[in-house]
């Protein structure tokens, strides 16, 4: 295991009854990089996410986070170790304001109420939601909700941030903003794994891409290679993508 490895996934298999959602998936995420996971709908990306973050127990395989075997850890413990995530369907706390939502995340590592508040405000400035800090969570637009979810995850001060379709449903302008935010997060030294169908974002952001299909990893490589891979085109991108 290299020093640079932030996360190492070894031979993960996850079954739901007879259905194999992940089969023997292995890959490594290096410290400070952005790794994208792409693949057809139902390929098992979210499942993989859930296995890594402790929401599912894989049937086989092991997961190491910064050298530590976290395969059997529960979700909240993994978060405490420094892995934060967002959900494919946005989740925010509906009876809290934006600020309070972020404070909830921030409480993970900070105890004093005032410090928590300051830190949360700082994060909101960073993510550009500061102006809306007193808005109730559900009153935000989708774009802002996604941004809030990222802010909440940042509140837990992760070293690895995992985003499940954080850019779905954004307008091109919003997409640009989100991409900028993700770059900024990376610049702060956070490693990122993103699952995304928005290829623009995948192409521009990722250092490396892992492609899975029917639960198995089919290829891994830099974005430019991936989009030219016939298997990927056939299974995922479709012919029109080049157009």
């Amino acid at each position, binding site marked *: 295991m290299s020093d640079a490895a932030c996360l190492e996934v070894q031979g993960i298999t996850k079954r739901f009854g007879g259905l194999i959602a992940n089969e023997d998936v292995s890959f490594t995420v290096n410290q400070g990089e952005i790794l994208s996971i792409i693949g057809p709908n139902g390929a098992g990306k979210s499942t993989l996410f859930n296995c890594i*973050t*402790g*929401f599912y127990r894989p049937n086989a395989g092991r997961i190491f986070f910064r050298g530590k075997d976290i395969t059997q850890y*529960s*979700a*909240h*413990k993994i*978060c*405490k170790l420094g892995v*934060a*995530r*967002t*959900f494919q369907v946005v*989740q*925010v*706390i*509906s*009876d*809290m304001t934006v600020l*309070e939502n972020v*404070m*909830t*995340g921030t*409480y*993970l590592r900070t*105890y004093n*109420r005032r410090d*928590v508040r300051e830190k949360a405000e700082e994060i909101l400035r960073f993510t550009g939601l500061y102006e809306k800090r007193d808005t109730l969570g559900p009153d935000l637009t989708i774009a802002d909700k996604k941004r809030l979810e990222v802010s*909440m*995850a940042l*509140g*837990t001060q992760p070293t690895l941030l995992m985003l499940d379709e954080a850019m779905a449903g954004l307008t091109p302008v919003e997409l640009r903003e989100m991409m900028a935010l993700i770059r900024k997060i990376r610049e702060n030294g956070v490693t990122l794994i993103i699952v995304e169908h928005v290829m623009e974002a995948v192409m521009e952001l990722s250092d490396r891409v892992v492609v899975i299909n029917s639960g198995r990893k089919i290829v891994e490589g830099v974005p430019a290679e991936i989009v030219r891979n016939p298997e990927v085109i056939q299974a995922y991108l479709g012919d029109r993508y080049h157009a």
Partner: protein
Amino acid sequence: MGKFTPRQIALYVVVLVALIAFPLVVKGTFPTHVMIMFFMFAMMGVAWNLLGGYAAMFSFGQAAFFGIGAYTSTILLMNYHVNPWIGLVVGGILAALTGAAIGIPCSNLRGHYFAIASIAFAEIVRICFNNWKFVGAAEGLSLPLLPESLGNFMFHSTKVPYYYIMLAFLVLSIFICWYITVNRGGFYLRAIKESHELAKGMGISFVRYRLYAIMVSAFLTAMAGTFYAQYILYLDPESVLILPISVQVVLVAMLGGAGTIMGPVIGAVILIPLSEYTRVWLGTKGTGVDMMLYGVLIMLISAYQPKGVWGLLTAIGKRAK
């Protein structure tokens, strides 16, 4: 939340002063008794609120904690001559531990499953106490009469000291719950209430925080139980462990406004005097009309003012500004 305007602070101070002055102005045991019952149910409502209002764990089993508090201090006093104040703390701890013991199997239960589980748990406790010789079984326990003093937690000639003790308990409970809810615990409980998934994703061990909530709630409720035992000086399973007590607590919190600090207090100030005085006025007719009115009130408030009376008051307050 967590911040008070000067006007609010002034209001709370005025109310508190009025409550402190009450026994000096209004003499008579019955009004004092009604106030004590109001404080007691308000306290239990506040404790329940931490579970039901903030963490959406709708417990219908608070009577179990109430009973454990009452029984523990009484048994300690009767069999081992332990001072009731120490009994109060031991009872609270025992109730908290019981809460934890039941909280673990129930920690994955949501919504109604939790509600039913809490009923089942409280019924088991009731049935066991009802048959357990050591705690007097169905016959109950009469407390030994100690000389009247604060140290003995017992007064025979007047109810006024009970009044102040219960008022102090209530204020203490409100403070504890307020403190918890404006700090990490409150944030975490609300996150858990929103979604277990979300909470886990934010590093919140929902099992642990739900347990904390149960334990604090159980401790405070058990305190009320010890108070009850010292106040009535007799207890049996039928008077401290039954479902109607749990239900009363829920109603107090719900009608006042669950999930708000003062809601249960408002609920209690309406419901308790209402039920005490309707019993006095209508109860002797033996027709149950008082209970029918009570039922109608509950239906109307929950159907037409589902945020509780506190919700109504804040709405009015906002409009006034």
